[in-house]
């Protein structure tokens, strides 16, 4: 079990994109072209969740920066609260359950989110910044 960091700041993003990852498998292809696939696991992994926070206040940008540091960068796993996943209430039920209807979540799929790379902070004007965050959901050991 890897170390957990603090929960991500509870902020609604201005843009979000998600890729659900894939299952571990291997493809065996014969000389005739016929292929056979063997599945090695029952959980998809490497789920990616990209969050954009455009033109947010400096205080909110600082909260994200501080969270990244508190997670020791890309090292620690953490939980996403409700607001970063809000906005598509049918696609993502956004309750506290571990239902697989919480499609933006990680726990219900046996995954843990961590930073895939350091977040990008852009200054827009005095008092306003934009932040781009890339998270990855991996199978926790």
């Amino acid at each position: 079990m890897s170390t957990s960091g603090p929960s991500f700041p509870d902020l609604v993003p201005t843009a979000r994109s998600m890729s659900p990852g894939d299952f571990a498998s291997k493809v065996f292809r014969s000389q005739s072209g016929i292929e056979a696939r063997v599945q090695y696991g029952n959980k998809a992994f490497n789920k990616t969740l990209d969050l954009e926070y455009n033109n947010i206040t400096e205080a909110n940008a600082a909260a994200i920066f501080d969270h990244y540091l508190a997670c020791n960068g890309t090292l620690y796993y953490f939980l996403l609260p409700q607001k970063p996943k809000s906005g598509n209430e049918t696609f993502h039920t956004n309750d506290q359950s571990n239902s697989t209807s919480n499609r933006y979540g990680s726990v219900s799929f046996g995954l843990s989110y961590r930073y895939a790379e350091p977040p990008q902070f852009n200054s827009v004007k005095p008092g306003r910044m934009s932040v781009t965050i890339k998270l990855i959901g991996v199978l926790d050991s």
Partner: protein
Amino acid sequence: MTYYSGKDGFISYNGATVAKVSNWSLSTTVETLDTTNLSLNDRTFVPGLRASTGSATIFYYDEAAKPLLERIVKTTATSEDDILTIKLGWGAKGIQSSCIITSAELNCAVGEIMQATIQFQFTGVLSNVAL
């Protein structure tokens, strides 16, 4: 209550009034920064950066337009020394700030009085506003 008309208008640069001004205009715009998040159905914005531009037409009477034209129509390169303070005024009111002449146009046509048209970009905050 007072109406203002063209006869009340004037332009001054670095404190000196420009003679024979035909017209001037000022345009100030503020960018908007989109702050709409995924929980909203209507876009929200906050004010972004502000910019002001202006233009003026000056009859080429003696050398009335020369001090403005020679800021960019000259044999040497333009520099920060060419930033000047322009005041667009009407009556006792006016707007003043530093600006850069961005365009200068001289028109000479048969049957018309020769005139110069300049456009300028204000730089920094407006230093004096009396509306």
